[in-house]
């Protein structure tokens, strides 16, 4: 009557069979697949957590890089002196608005300031009408001298900048920015030697500048450079008795350290030349880019801090999300744990299954979250035109955190549930 069952307690211990890891993995996958909604919701917590961390850090880094690039594009060893700060009735007229600076001032500075490596004067007007054939555009016209390309780091991509001879005789020649070229010329059309009409006067194109891109929302390529002499006589038309009026000049020092000395010397020479008495205000304004740089460095520091704080918060929120849904998911499965234990599951196999599920959810959700975060960051960078950078640490941190949180939040309640007396687990609803 009796079957071949063991009558001896010792044999139970020997007979014990362990559920293989493969079996646990299959069971976990089946459970996740059979509970698609719960799996999807849990995974969503992981996905949102990781993708927000990656997206926010990527955007933060992109903006930082762009800001940094813009600042260094301005030059770290240059300053600009602009006419103005003249006050009438206590109202500042704004830099560059008063014609207090002349080309002679700029040339005197170049000669007399020992720390000035190079000086370039400029006279500019915005919204100048430029016509070629039947195309009519409005752009910025800038009259300058031959030092401008080197100080402002402008390279020709076709032709050359105008020459000393052009400057000396005030010839109507134009070196155009790439945006102007794109607006006036068809792709592949020859630009050098072509004629433009600037405010009704004929100019010949001698070169096209390499693109400089956007800076602070301003298109640096939307400009035409002509000889300062020509600008002064033909476009602005104010041949002052005192000389050629300019908006200002750029000064390049050998390096950033000499800029403050140069600023001091420039101030003294200009006050002397303009006959400004002690106690009276300057009729010019100096912007020193070393000062600006250090301000921006401080701003960038706060920006980095802010990005870090936001990333930290989204990590926290993501982590809480994952923890929450894992906890709820295990709680509602207490009865399932009871059933599995009643049919012979050990605490270990229950725990292995729940841990495997938590790891699967964290890993799969993590991969999707990384993909989504990178894609979103790319989209935002493309739309708002800043560099697309994904810091590797953000992927690592996001992924690692979701795994740790997932395993802890899935594992700890699962361990507690697995330790429950099967009776209590079965009674739960």
């Amino acid at each position, binding site marked *: *009557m*009796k*079957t071949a*069952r*063991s*009558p*001896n*307690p*010792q044999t*139970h*211990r020997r*007979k*014990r*069979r*362990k*559920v*293989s890891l493969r*079996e646990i993995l299959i*069971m976990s996958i*089946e*459970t996740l697949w*059979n*509970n698609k909604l719960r799996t999807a919701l849990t995974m969503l917590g992981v996905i949102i957590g990781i993708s927000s961390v990656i997206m926010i850090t990527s955007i933060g880094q992109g903006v930082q890089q762009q800001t940094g690039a813009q600042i260094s594009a301005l030059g770290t060893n240059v300053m600009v002196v602009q006419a103005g700060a003249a006050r009438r009735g206590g109202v500042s007229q704004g830099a560059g608005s008063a014609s207090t600076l002349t080309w002679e001032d700029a040339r005197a500075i170049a000669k007399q300031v020992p720390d000035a490596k190079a000086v370039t004067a400029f006279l500019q007007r915005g919204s100048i009408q430029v016509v070629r054939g039947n195309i009519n555009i409005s752009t910025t016209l800038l009259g300058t001298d031959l030092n401008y390309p080197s100080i402002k780091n402008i390279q020709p991509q076709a032709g050359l900048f105008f020459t000393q001879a052009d400057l000396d005789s005030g010839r109507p020649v134009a070196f155009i920015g790439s945006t102007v070229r794109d607006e006036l010329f068809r792709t592949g059309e020859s630009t050098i030697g072509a004629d433009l009409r600037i405010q009704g006067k004929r100019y010949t194109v001698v070169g096209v500048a390499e693109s400089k891109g956007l800076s602070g929302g301003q298109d640096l390529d939307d400009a035409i450079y002509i000889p300062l002499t020509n600008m002064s006589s033909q476009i602005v038309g104010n041949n002052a008795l005192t000389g050629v009026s300019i908006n200002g000049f750029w000064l390049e020092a050998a390096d950033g350290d000499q800029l403050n000395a140069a600023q001091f010397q420039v101030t003294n020479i200009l006050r002397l030349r303009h006959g400004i008495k002690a106690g009276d205000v300057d009729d010019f304004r100096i912007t020193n880019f070393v000062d600006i740089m250090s301000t921006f460095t401080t701003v960038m520091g706060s920006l980095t801090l802010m990005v870090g704080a936001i990333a930290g918060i989204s990590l926290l929120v993501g982590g809480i999300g994952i923890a929450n849904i894992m906890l709820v998911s295990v709680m509602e499965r207490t*009865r*399932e744990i*009871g*059933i*599995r*234990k*009643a*049919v*012979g*599951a*050990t*605490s*270990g*196999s229950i725990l292995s299954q729940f841990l495997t599920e938590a790891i699967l959810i964290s890993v799969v959700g993590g991969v999707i979250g990384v993909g989504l975060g990178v894609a979103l960051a790319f989209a935002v960078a493309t739309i708002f035109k800043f560099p697309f950078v994904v810091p590797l640490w953000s992927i690592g941190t996001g992924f690692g955190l979701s795994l740790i949180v997932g395993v802890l939040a899935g594992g700890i309640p699962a361990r507690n549930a697995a330790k429950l*007396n*099967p*009776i209590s687990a*079965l009674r739960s609803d």
Partner: protein
Amino acid sequence: MATMIWMEGITQTFHLEGMDLPVLKQIDLSIDDGEYVAIMGASGSGKSTLMNIIGCLDRPTSGLYILDGSDLTTLDDDELADIRNQYIGFVFQQFNLLPRLSALENVMLPMIYAAVPKSARVTAATEALTKVGLLDRLKSRPSQLSGGQQQRVAIARALVNHPALVLADEPTGALDSKTSQEIMNLLTELNQQGTTIAIVTHDASVAAQTKRTIHMVDGKIVEAANGSVQPSANNLRPDAAIV
């Protein structure tokens, strides 16, 4: 006839808010291999607690319990899980099927924990479901089955590891009378094929269909009906091994 269950001086005391609450008081019980037993009693009589101890879902506070020749008193949690897996099949009032699994998958569950390979699981589970008349519902989920059918799935699950003992806790409690009778007929049939079955119930008509009824009142066995005496007929403690 061999002894399946041998219990001596089993007590179970719960601790509630600092109070000792004795639920089982010195239970002596023996059930032989192939028996068909009902454990009857009012609510609170301790019959469910006794069933939990017989089923290794819970441990007694004291006493000796030998199941199919194995002393269970000294086993740890994992060893008890093995005993449940290999020696005992459960049938619950509320069926306790996993809702997301098909009938076949539910029946295969105990075999997963017995580390039976998949092909053998499918064969054995199909066989068990055929035995309870559900060959055509292998792929159905519990929600797609009637209460009677769900209980049949539960019975198939209880049988699939060829347990020494099937324990049924109010197996007809959630079913109408016609379906209840079908389930009882199935259990009776299984017992005739040699399975030892113990049913916990408060329903006298259910108990009447078994071959022996054990009455419990206030944590004690008061009377063994159907002519059996306590302890069981052979009156010998199985010589198994007390570790």
